[in-house]
């Protein structure tokens, strides 16, 4: 079935342009959309020819329905068969490397792609992308931004979703790609003249109006047209006389299925049977597989295959057979009587299993092989639940969900099955479904242990999704039963610690942390102990007990290092890094974060990614490196969104908001705020220090101090108990005092002063805390000496932004400091403050001298961090290599590179390299 490409001139022109661009080294992605049979695959064939002419490497896969059961098969399949001789993807031919270590595999994929595209631009085409498996979908979400600056061009063809499958990983991926409103390349029905030409091609002769009129009933869909005409020819209802074809039949097929049926009926009985049984595979299949299924020897089968090839089958690149179009396969399949269908699925399940194909594929067939098969499918999924939960939780959950109705309501195993399914749904971030199903199971009455495990799964899922209140509800329900195993109790308490901490119940949180440790240690549940300690560290930090915070995080880290396993997977270095930053121990923090991040990458703990970004952002912010901090937070936000880790998106957005205000980008800050509001609207909660404070900063900046004060009224009241804000942002104390005074709230100003003093007293070693206390008091009382003491403390703390703020305040009290403050804020990129100080200086008639500028660097448009990245990329490093060299995350390199491309107006790495070579001289 390969009609000429008709009527697609505009699309071909567009795609030709895209390929020319790719050949010139520019990357990007495109989505091709249209209903099944409209000619997407045919158009892609033309694209492959164009790509070959341009000497592009092409990696392509036509996904099929069962891709969804095979982790990474869509993407790995494409790359494995890359047209270019490249060793970069050789490792993918090894047997399912992805299963043992999915996230490690993603890292490796990225590196391989970077390697491969160094040699030659690469076109990756995924046809029928709606069937992309979930691990591939995840990988593509990761790789597209990661490779944005590499000469990799992605082309996805997909059909619009139906109500049933709109949440499949493939469709979600397409929605994600098109989320910013980029229109897809839409394939419309063919026009009448094209359909007439197509008809003539199919019939092999000129056709008259009877044919054209009837073909028009297929509404410009080439596949349907072709099937209809073939059926007519096969049933002799379309005859060619004197070189012209006419429809003369009196029993015209009235639908696509009927056309396929007619065509099938025109084959010999054994050939038709071969097709019927092969339709069950749902994927390309080997002749040997059909032989086994049909019980025919291979020799007898070949002539039948030959017969079936004409109208139904095509040979794929690997020598397997496939239906020419999935819609045709479905139509053939739909005609199988149910008992026969079930029998065939049973046999195909055995064949699939023997061939060592993915377990979910086998389970899928078992599921369709009748009521007894559902049990087998469930056993299959459960036997490898842990493994599957990491690579294909969604597909596995779907199988379980479909099997559940077949499991008797009175079946004693049913609750456990539901609990497992809830766990899988939670792993797949399908929170709403997990909660619904979980609720149903809980209502049905479970044995206490199962119920506790189920509640734990739900609590963890809710925690991940940022639904802290619900997390606490679930843990409390579970913990109401004192007889559940201690290990489970420990885990429940550990989750509860974090949730309560977010909800502001610090005492309760700490109490749960204590219990997690007390119950977890004897039970050997070290993961819970570590997570509980991490929670206590967070509580201590929030309460301003910075040394305690450090001590808990440190003991968690030691335990994790000692026990490994689940304990290590909690990555307590995240909180250790945070505690160290709060204590101004920046170099140690950086070291800890770097080590922790490397471990986390190695173990594939994707959940931790946004957290690393957050604490790295906090560190950069503390060091006054605003632009880098913004990039870091932005990358973290992208990762959080990819994993739908909404709880982590909030603090990152808060950081971005504050940074944007400091840099004077108020409209961007407003965008971040809008995003915060959207998440909050979805029920995602955040701690006040993260978002309320950030919003207030924006309000002050936009000249609405009264609104800012109103927003913070509760925060003021609570400062005595939770002065965490001062630990994160020591200059905030004085800012809060000023805000309170400016709006006439002297009482609140005093509260701030007292709270800052208390924090300083509690943390005698902290220069930041001491500085914050002096700064707040100094501003409150207009006491220059105190502000100057704050300057001294901040200088010791090495916090440039706080120092600049204190200097500015000192200057306004008659001290000296504007010049130094100006130079600091200029260096930090704190544009708003810079503008303010300059205005003051201008008003005083003092001319702000140009800060003693360092020798002008090359590519002055770039920030220092960007320049470092640009130079490394100019040297030919891949993003992964640059990340290694510069000790920053790959996501951050990606983000920097996007900014660099935008600032320099280049679109290709080669252009950048040339620019770097010209502007920055030899860099090796």
């Amino acid at each position, binding site marked *: 079935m390969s009609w000429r490409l008709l009527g697609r001139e505009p699309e071909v022109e567009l795609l030709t342009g895209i390929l020319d661009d790719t050949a010139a080294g520019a990357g990007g992605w495109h989505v091709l959309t249209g*209903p*099944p*049979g409209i000619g997407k695959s045919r158009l892609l064939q033309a694209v492959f020819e164009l790509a070959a002419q341009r000497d592009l490497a092409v990696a392509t896969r036509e996904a099929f329905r069962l891709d969804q059961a095979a982790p990474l098969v869509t993407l790995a399949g494409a790359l494995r068969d890359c047209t270019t001789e490249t060793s970069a993807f050789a490792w993918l031919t090894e047997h399912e490397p992805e299963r043992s270590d999915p996230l490690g595999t993603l890292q490796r994929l990225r590196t391989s792609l970077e390697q491969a595209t160094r040699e030659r631009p690469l076109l990756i085409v995924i046809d029928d992308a709606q069937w992309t498996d979930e691990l591939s979908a995840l990988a593509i979400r990761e790789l597209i931004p990661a490779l944005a600056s590499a000469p990799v061009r992605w082309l996805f063809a997909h*059909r*619009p*979703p*139906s*109500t*049933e499958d709109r949440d499949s990983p493939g469709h979600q991926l397409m929605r994600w790609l098109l989320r910013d409103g980029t229109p897809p390349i839409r394939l419309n029905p063919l026009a009448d003249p094209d359909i007439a030409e197509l008809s003539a091609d199919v019939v092999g002769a000129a056709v*008259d*109006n*009877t044919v*054209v*009129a*009837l073909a*028009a*009933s297929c*509404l410009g869909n080439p596949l349907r047209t072709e099937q209809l005409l073939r059926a007519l020819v096969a049933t002799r209802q379309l*005859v060619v*006389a*004197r070189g012209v074809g*006419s*429809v*003369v*039949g*009196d*029993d015209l097929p*009235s*639908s*696509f*299925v*009927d056309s*396929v049926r007619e065509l099938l009926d025109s084959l010999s009985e054994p050939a038709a049977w071969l097709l019927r049984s092969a339709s069950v595979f749902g994927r390309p299949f080997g002749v040997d597989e059909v032989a086994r299924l049909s019980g025919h020897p291979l020799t007898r089968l070949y002539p039948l295959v030959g017969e079936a090839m004409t109208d139904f089958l095509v040979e794929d690149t690997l020598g397997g057979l496939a239906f020419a179009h999935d*819609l*045709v396969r*479905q*139509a053939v*399949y*739909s*005609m*199988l*009587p*149910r008992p026969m*269908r079930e029998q065939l699925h049973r046999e195909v399940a055995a064949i699939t299993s023997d061939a060592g194909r993915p377990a979910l594929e086998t389970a899928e067939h078992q599921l369709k092989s009748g009521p007894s098969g559902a049990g087998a499918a469930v056993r299959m999924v459960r036997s490898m639940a842990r493994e599957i939960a990491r690579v294909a939780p969604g597909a596995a959950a779907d199988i379980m969900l479909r099997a559940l109705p077949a499991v008797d309501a009175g079946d004693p195993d049913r609750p456990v099955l539901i609990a497992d399914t809830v766990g899988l749904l939670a792993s797949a971030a399908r929170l709403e479904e997990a909660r619904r199903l979980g609720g149903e199971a809980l209502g049905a009455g479970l044995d206490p242990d199962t119920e506790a495990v189920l509640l734990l799964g739900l609590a963890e899922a809710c925690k991940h999704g940022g639904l802290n209140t619900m997390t606490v509800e679930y843990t409390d329900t579970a913990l109401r039963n004192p007889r559940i195993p201690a290990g489970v109790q420990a885990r429940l308490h550990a989750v509860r610690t974090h949730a309560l901490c977010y909800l502001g119940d610090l005492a309760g949180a700490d109490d749960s942390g204590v219990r997690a440790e007390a119950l977890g240690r004897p039970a050997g549940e070290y993961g819970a102990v570590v997570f509980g300690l991490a929670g206590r560290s967070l509580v201590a930090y929030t309460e301003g007990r910075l040394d305690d915070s450090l001590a808990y995080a440190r003991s968690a880290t030691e335990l994790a290092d000692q026990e490994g396993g689940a304990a290590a997977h909690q990555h307590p270095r995240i909180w250790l890094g945070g505690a160290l930053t709060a204590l101004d121990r920046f170099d140690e923090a950086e070291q800890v974060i770097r080590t922790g991040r490397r471990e986390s990458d190695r173990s594939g703990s994707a959940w931790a990614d946004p957290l690393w970004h957050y604490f790295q952002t906090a560190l950069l912010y503390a060091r006054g490196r605003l632009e880098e901090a913004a990039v870091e937070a932005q990358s973290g936000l992208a990762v959080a969104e990819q994993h739908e880790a909404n709880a982590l998106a909030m603090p990152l957005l808060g950081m971005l908001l504050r940074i944007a205000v400091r840099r004077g980008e108020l409209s961007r800050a407003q965008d971040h705020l809008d995003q915060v509001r959207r998440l909050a609207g979805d029920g995602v909660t955040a701690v006040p220090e993260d978002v309320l404070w950030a919003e207030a900063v924006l309000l002050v900046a936009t000249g609405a101090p009264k609104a800012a004060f109103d927003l913070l009224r509760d925060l003021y009241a609570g400062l005595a108990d939770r002065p965490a804000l001062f630990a994160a942002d020591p200059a905030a104390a004085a800012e809060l005092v000023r805000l309170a005074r400016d709006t006439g709230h002297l009482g609140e100003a005093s509260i701030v002063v007292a709270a800052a003093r208390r924090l300083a007293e509690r943390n005698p070693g902290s220069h930041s805390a001491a500085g914050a206390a002096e700064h707040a008091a100094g501003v409150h009382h207009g006491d220059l000496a105190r502000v100057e003491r704050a300057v001294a403390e901040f200088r010791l703390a090495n916090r440039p932004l706080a120092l600049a703020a204190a200097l500015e305040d000192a200057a306004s009290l008659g001290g000296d400091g504007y010049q130094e403050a100006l130079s600091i804020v200029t260096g930090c990129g704190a544009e708003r403050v810079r503008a303010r100080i300059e205005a003051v200086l201008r008003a005083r008639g003092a001319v702000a001298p140009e800060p003693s500028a360092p020798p002008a660097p090359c590519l002055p448009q770039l920030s220092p961090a960007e320049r470092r990245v640009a130079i490394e990329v100019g040297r030919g490093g891949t993003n992964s290599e640059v990340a290694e060299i510069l000790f920053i995350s790959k996501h951050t390199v990606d983000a920097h590179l996007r900014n660099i491309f935008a600032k320099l107006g280049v679109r290709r790495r080669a252009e950048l390299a040339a620019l770097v070579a010209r502007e920055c001289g030899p860099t090796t």
Partner: protein
Amino acid sequence: MPPSALRTPVLVAGAGVVGSLTALELAHHGVPSMVVERADRPARIPDLLLINGRSMELLRRLDLTRDLRAAGLDPDCPLDFLWSAGIDRPPALQWRLPPVATLRQAYASTTDGTAPIEPYLLISSPGLIGRLRRALRGHPLIDLRTRWTLTEVEAEADTVTATVLDAEAGARHFVEAGYLAGCDGADSTVRRCAGLTLEELGPPAPHLILHFRSPTLAARWANPTVAVTGGTTVITGHDGDRCVAYVPLTADEQAALANPADLLQDRLGVAEDPSRIVTVVQRAGVPSVARSYRRGRVFLAGQAAHQVETPGDDLATCIGDAVGLGWRLAAAVHGWAGDRLLAGYQTERRRQALADREHAVRRRATRLRLQRLVESGVDGAALAAVLRNGPAQLDPAGTGPAELAGVAGYRPPAFRLTGGGQFFDRLGPQFTLVDLTVGQDGYPLVKAARTRGIPVRHLPLAGAPTPAAWSGRLVLIRPDQVVVWSADGPPIDCDGVLDEATGARSRLYENT
């Protein structure tokens, strides 16, 4: 013109409902025709059709009703309509179409003339077409050629030549005709040959029509039943274990086309084995109407000229097309009417198609509303009110609004003559002047008509028990039982009246 050409006054393409009735209408006026039809037997799609009372009146003129009723559903059996939130759920709303026998009695006791003289008929489409074909075969003026396919049309100023392929013999023929009636359905070849195009009137409403066997479903209700659930409509109990499901699809559900069995299960929860699905019909459901119904001597009628979202809803309009085209073409062939009368065909029938569309839109809105309410569990009384206050979902009479009865452009009121016979049965095949005057004052008009060769039956009915709505003592009625002119005395300008009657008076409006 090749010497071997066959000749006929009117060539009719297609022997479906519209083609057959066009030929029978022509024959009713004494005009021979040739009917070419690709298929040898009725299509395999056993749709259940409802022919409303008004259409039955028109068929009664052609002496078809007795024969058709013999092939129809049991006249003592009602048709139940059920709305429910699921096929297994108790119905939230019920409505019953009374049996034919009941309506016949009710109509007999209606005295205002609005009741049709024939009740509706439920009949399967193969049953209807089979009977019509038999009538074609039995008629001496009609030359039915099945397995003949029209492939090309060449129109000249005073003839149309069609190329026709005889599939059986593998031979090609040329048919020279005075007129060509394209009654060849939605995928009309004639339309394409004539270069006539459709105008889309609304968004497509694609759907599948699934014909399947289900003994359980067919036996679920005592009477033949139309069950509406979640937008899907199932008709059962009308034809043994055969059921028909109308399943709307969204534009994005085209993939479902390949797996109707699963679709059936999804939508209805009916787990029928695929082998029990007899036929699947796929429709684009694009409401559309031909921009023009005519090019020279080539005319379109029925679904070649207009299509509605839901098939079957347009049957009355299709029958009206056939009758309207038939009598006008007959007049043209007989030579007593000119081009103006033919032009009136498009004006009237296209307007009717557009009115159908408007009505369908309103009906659909009510249907969707009902569906939503049923799903939300609103009580039966509220649902009944929606059904009552909305546009009629089904009108078994089809005689139009009572206040327009007898008005020019509409059906005259029906009544029984003193002897017991129906007044309608006394109308002539051509024009009829109903004359209630004692002195037969209408005679000058009849005479004037006959002078011009216009056939008019003079029907003196002085003292007849006409209903109150009767519009005048002299009423001129068209062949399709539509009032053209009425007055209490003879016209001063007889020719003016006749001009109007045979011409395309723009305000003439017909409701069949």
